[in-house]
């Protein structure tokens, strides 16, 4: 009789420990990035382009990578939203919950969501070679758009599906078309869309494997779509493999900037959900 109570106590402690482990991992990762990255940070890191001899430890900053990342992610977010918002509405307003097409497309988006970014990168790279394109800002934007669409659709769809179908029935009964009902749906899922967008941007900005193939790397800020563009994750990756300590410390600085951006996006996403849910009918 007593054994089961001892087992209960022991397991409870073990479970609490594994949960604490999560906090330990997050703490250790963020502590490491701050400890290594903060000393390497300076204003010139975020305001200057790499100067001559930057990669042997001379002056300069990471502006090229920051701007490149923002350009790629900004453009793909806009393109991605243009495609995915209509798809989410189609799945949730135009199709009934039992629709076969709905089931099949959700499954397909799950699969696309699971496709590793390196595969997207390799695939996009071969397409670019076939079309005679060089690594460029455009290539980066295209591949990140492809990568981000399934993320957008899946996370928005999850929000849209929680909407009570009665709301739609109410609008239909007033004579609204399905397109007009979309306006009601928008009110319901707007905070969800905002959160989903921010979290997906966070994933897109941190992705290195896909842009490695397609966007290339450069010291300048691209002025046209056909020029290559640097990105933050690659700035970390390339500079960390350098044997020169000054260059390595810049990799940590880039990692620090990247982490700060991602954390802001993730915390911002949370705040939006909490703050803008007032229009929701529960």
């Amino acid at each position, binding site marked *: 009789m007593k054994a089961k109570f001892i*087992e*209960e106590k022991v397991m*409870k402690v073990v*479970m*609490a420990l594994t*949960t604490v*482990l*999560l906090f330990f*991992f*997050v703490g250790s*990762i963020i502590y*490491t*990035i701050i400890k290594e990255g903060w000393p390497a940070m300076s204003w010139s890191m975020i305001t200057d382009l790499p100067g001559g001899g930057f990669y042997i430890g001379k002056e300069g900053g990471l502006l090229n990578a920051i701007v490149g990342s923002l350009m790629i992610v900004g453009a793909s977010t806009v393109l991605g939203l243009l*495609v995915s918002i209509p*798809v989410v509405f*189609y*799945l949730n307003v*135009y199709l009934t919950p039992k629709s076969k*097409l709905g089931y099949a*497309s959700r*499954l*397909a*988006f799950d*699969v696309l969501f*699971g*496709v*590793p970014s*390196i*595969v*997207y*990168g*390799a*695939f996009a*790279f*071969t397409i670019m070679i076939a079309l005679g394109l060089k690594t460029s800002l455009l290539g980066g934007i295209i591949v990140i758009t*492809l990568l981000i*669409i399934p993320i957008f*659709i899946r996370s928005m769809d999850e929000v849209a599906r929680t909407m009570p179908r009665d709301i739609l029935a109410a609008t239909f009964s007033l004579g609204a*078309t*399905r*397109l007009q009902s979309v306006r009601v749906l928008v009110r319901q899922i707007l905070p969800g869309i905002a959160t989903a967008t921010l*979290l997906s941007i*966070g*994933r897109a900005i*941190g992705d*290195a*494997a896909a842009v*490695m*193939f397609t966007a290339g790397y450069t010291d300048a800020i691209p002025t046209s779509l056909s020029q290559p563009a640097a990105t933050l994750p690659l700035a*970390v990756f390339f500079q*960390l493999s350098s044997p020169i300590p000054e260059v390595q410390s810049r*990799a940590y600085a880039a*990692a620090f900037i*990247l*982490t700060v951006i*991602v*954390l802001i*996006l*993730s915390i911002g996403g*949370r705040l939006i959900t909490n703050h803008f849910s007032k229009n929701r009918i529960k």
Partner: protein
Amino acid sequence: MKLKLITDKSAAGVMFSLTLLSLLLVVVIAAGLIFKSMPILEEHSLWELISSSKWKPARGEFGFLPFIVGTLWVTGIAILWTLPVALLTSIFLTENSKRWVKKAVFPILDILAGLPSVIYGVWGIVVVVPWISDWLAPMFVEFSTGYTLLTGGIVLGIMILPLMVSLFVELFSATPMEMREASLSLGATRWQTTKFVLLRKNFPGILATVILSISRAMGETIAVLMVCGNIVQIPSSPLDGGYPLPALIANNYGEMLSIPMYDSALMFAALILFVVVMVFNIVSRVILRRIENKYI
């Protein structure tokens, strides 16, 4: 009155074609990868490619076995240690913990899930690599650089933890309360209820989650590439260096056009990843959907 019906219909058309177009992506990626890997498949048999361990691209020898074994090792280690951790954590969150613990843990999971791969790589190099080379490895082998399969497995595990925990939590929260109450009313402790009711009842879901996590882990590129050594060999222990498939693609895309067949070989590697990930994803999603439909 008519105008609004026309706009409604045409919007339906536009939305339908956008949906179809994005779905086509699966087919297009598959077709593209198959098309590009045809040249190497014509020259060598499929079996030869995946069972040979000779990797000398310049001489036209492409054996993918070291890379496949490397991927299996890293993924295996990652799943092996994360599965119990994720299970126990999610049981704690759904069965035992107070509300505030949940409120504190979910943002942490968000952060873990949101951190870029390359950041995990940096953390792996700064923290895990020295830990293995200075502390763990000397207990078993003479010398280790710290860039090992085990390092890759540890880092990869942390990356898939948030996915696993959130799927498990979803699964356990959807299990009807009555099942637990029935067991508790017979005098079972909470842990006994967990063991005999919750885990048994959710076995298919747990399996599906594991499959999904495996497929996620297999494709991870940059973090693993940064910490696992990238040595072309068939590893014999977790403290050897290894060279998983995604790392192979990422490291060599630059040279792939200068050596004949090399680009085809790399696309074949991407195809292997794509096919495995796709099959695993479909299987696990279908199981998870079925469970979801049963309860809700």
